């Protein structure tokens, strides 16, 4: 009985929560701009609508195009099952840090291929930008997680996130923030890319999936929503570790805390996005430098702690 409840909750967390988080960010932005905004569940309705439409594919596209969409969605779901991003998780197997990084790389690889498959100039523009951004942000993402791995002496994220013995709040805070900034770039969120704009020349993620439609588009959108939930979920777990020692918290409180902090991170990102402006493309490396600096600081903290 308990197990069934857990599975139901987890299915909810995978399929309903990610689009709702997108809805929440949009709602926060709308409220801060004095608009009513669409309901929080609007992205779910959008996905349902997309699934009912008939798909259109470019004449130029080959098998790579649809394969890429399916790959993205499958890999995102896999990540959502194995990563410790939210508290009630029925899956208890290992989840390696480097494997996660390279699964994210695989998602990016196939999205870029899909963008170039249609022979569209916009898609290729965006693909080239995405490749550049990812190369700049990858060290920050990896180093912020590697810094966390050192006190636990393991690259298994489950071990890292359940380690309550070596408790360094400063490390969790630095790594969490570095990872948050890195994932905002990875997810093509605001200061780097504006997900609401539709000017093809300035977009990154949206231009890459410009040719996708109906089921295909739904897969890409859903994969992106899941990726957002998972990466923000990891950040919120980092912040929770910074605030309190999670080893001492009861399971039920843990569920509430993890959900609450995830919603708080999403709302915070929404608030940030309504005051931030999209950066000029050449300024993007400067923003990413913040993420990298924080990650390096986390490394210094963790190396200092490891020598003790």
């Amino acid at each position, binding site marked *: 009985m308990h197990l069934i409840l857990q599975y139901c909750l987890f299915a909810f967390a995978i399929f309903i929560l990610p689009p709702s988080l997108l809805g929440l960010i949009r709602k926060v932005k709308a409220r801060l701009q004095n608009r009513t905004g669409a309901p929080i569940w609007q992205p779910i309705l959008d996905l349902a609508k997309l699934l009912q439409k*008939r*798909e*259109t*594919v*470019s*004449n130029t596209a*080959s*098998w*790579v195009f*649809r394969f890429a*969409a*399916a790959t993205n969605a*499958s890999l995102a779901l*896999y990540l959502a*099952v194995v990563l410790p991003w939210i508290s009630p998780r029925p899956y208890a197997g*290992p*989840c*390696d840090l*480097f*494997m996660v990084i*390279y*699964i994210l*790389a*695989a998602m*990016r*690889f196939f999205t870029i*291929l899909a963008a*170039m*498959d*249609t*022979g569209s*100039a916009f898609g*290729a*523009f965006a*693909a*080239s*930008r995405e*490749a*550049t951004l*990812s*190369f700049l942000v*990858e*060290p920050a993402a*990896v*180093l912020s997680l*590697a*810094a966390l791995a*050192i006190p636990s*002496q393991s*690259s*298994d994220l489950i071990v890292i996130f359940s380690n309550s013995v070596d408790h360094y709040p400063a490390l969790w805070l630095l790594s969490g923030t570095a990872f948050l900034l890195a994932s905002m770039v990875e997810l093509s969120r605001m200061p780097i890319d504006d997900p609401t704009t539709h000017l*093809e020349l300035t977009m990154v993620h949206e231009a890459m999936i*410009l*040719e996708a439609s*109906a089921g*295909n588009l739904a897969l890409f959108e859903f994969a992106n929503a899941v990726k957002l939930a998972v990466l923000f979920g990891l950040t919120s777990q980092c912040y929770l570790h910074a605030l309190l020692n999670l080893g001492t918290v009861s399971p039920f409180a843990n569920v509430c805390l993890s959900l609450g902090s995830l919603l708080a991170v999403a709302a915070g990102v929404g608030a940030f996005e309504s005051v931030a402006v999209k950066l000029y493309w050449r300024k993007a*490396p400067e923003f990413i430098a913040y993420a990298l600096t924080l990650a390096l600081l986390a490394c210094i903290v963790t*190396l200092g702690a*490891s*020598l003790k």
Partner: protein
Amino acid sequence: MTLFPGVLIASCALPALLAIVSLIRRPNHKACAVALLAFGIICLSVAGSTWRQTVLWQAPDWLAIGMVPVQLTGDPLSAFFMLLLATVCICCAIYSPDYLEHLKDRISHRFYWSALFAFVGGMAGVLLAGNAVVFIVAWEVMSIASALLVLSDFRQQRAQKAAINYLVATRVATAFISLGFLLMYVRFADWSFSAWNFSDKSSWPAAAFLMIGFIIKAGIWPFHIWLPYAHPEAPSPVSSLMSGVMVKVAVYAALRFFVVGQLSCQPLVYAVFALASVSAFWGILFAINQRELKRLLAYSTVENIGLIFLGLSLSLWARNVGLDDLACVALLGMLLHCFAHGLFKSLLFLSAGCVDYSAHSRDLTLLGGLSKRMPLTTAFFVLGSSANCAIPPLNGFVSKWYLYQSLLRSAYTLPTLCDRAVCLAAIGVLSAVGALAVACFAKAIGVAFLGKARTSQSGNAKEVPPSMTLAQLLLASACLVTGIGASGLLPFLSPVLTYSRSVVLQTDVLASLPLCQFAVSFAVLMSAIFALLLRNRPFKYKTWDCGFGSLSTKTQATADSFAQPIARIFTPVLHHSLTVDISGRDRRHFPEKISVEPSIVSLLETRFYGPAAYGLGKLSQSMAKLQAGSIHLYLLYVCIALVILMLVGTAIW
């Protein structure tokens, strides 16, 4: 038991015989391919028979080079590399007959096949050499034969230039290696490798010379500049043998001398670690800026060799500070990466050869749209690229994961803070290299295989004949199997590790890497998505063009435009610049001519090697004046030399 030395001898003697036969008689492609296949199978049996034991063969006294009798040794370490050689040889043998058809008037059969047999025989000889003299002879055969193969298409000026560069590099490498061998002989008074070790200070100079020789041959920065020119010029099977196996032979030599021979010279290890990190980054940075498919792959080889030497030096480093477990993880990562890179880079070179075969070009600016014409080749190239980008569950990921794992472990086990910080920084470098590799291969696939065809040649390309597909299929499935089945195959590596004086690895290291489970769940999810959501045939329509209706092949991204943002970030290193020319009467609204020409400069070549070669040329010109052809001058030289010799002689007596 008497069979074993027989296979060792056969694997060296057969190619020698074949090389001579194919030089005398005009060879037929099919017959030669069968011979190569037979050679591959013999190598396979050598690997099988020496996998767990050492087999020695000492030639009778009459068969000697100089005063040193020929000695062949097969041991677990050479068996591991023989397995790689055998796999790639077999695939190349299947691939070659059809592939060579399209080169028929550009290469000479006799020349090509005899050089190829000498080349593979030389590699087998290096792997099985039991003493330094056999080693250097086999090494020379391998180097010269491969230089001849680079020159296969000898009418091309590019090939001539590449062959000259390559020959210079191999000459320098051989000089350093010979010097190292002589020093070792002086030290141990024995040519046999089993007598040598590098654990005390007196053999460090020899170790440094040998290391320089091997990293020149392997193509580590700053000695890599020959590699991206030489590898692409050869026909594709040779490129895949060179990139897939030959550079690994240099790695094998480094393993044989420094890991088995227990190098303890820490400064040398630090230097190799630094050079390896630089070459990983440098290689991929130049790879992404290439326009030629095979040159892009060759630069990516520089990157991968950098990763391999990173693992090698980390392993030595860890052993020198007494961390045997860590040394073993690093060594395992490095061995796996040798094998993985051998497989996927051979696959990629063979696929690039298919592109050349069907579309008659390797230039990315002339390709495009091949994925519809050649879906199988595209699929193989995507798979090989994914392995190179370390995408799980392929073999490239497993090996890279071990490298990451060893770096992460050293970041909390090495003794000093500085060492730990260096290893943590190397993780950052490795991740940036990984992201650049994704960008690089996405570009290669996107420009060469996807989108619209840029020329009619690539628009009319046809899928390659079945034999070429089969060769790619074999390599692709090897990449997949050694990736997914890594945890099952790993125990087979324990003889190699034990032989390399490493502790046997605890198998739980792999436990946190559920690749099999990942592969299964990925396959299930993919089929569910295709069955449920992408079931319907889509409606076909043209690509969105903003309503202008003018999308053409010219509006697609080119190789240069894709890499431009990255090249711009590295302007100080690459000297990236754009020359834009927009002209016409009404230049602003109706330009008649628009041209954009990007350029990058390899500073190492223009600032260092260029001036060095120029200075050397000047020097030899001025030396030539000494030999002006005047008999009077020569008589004077003879006289001066005589006087000096007499003076020196009297001083010594």
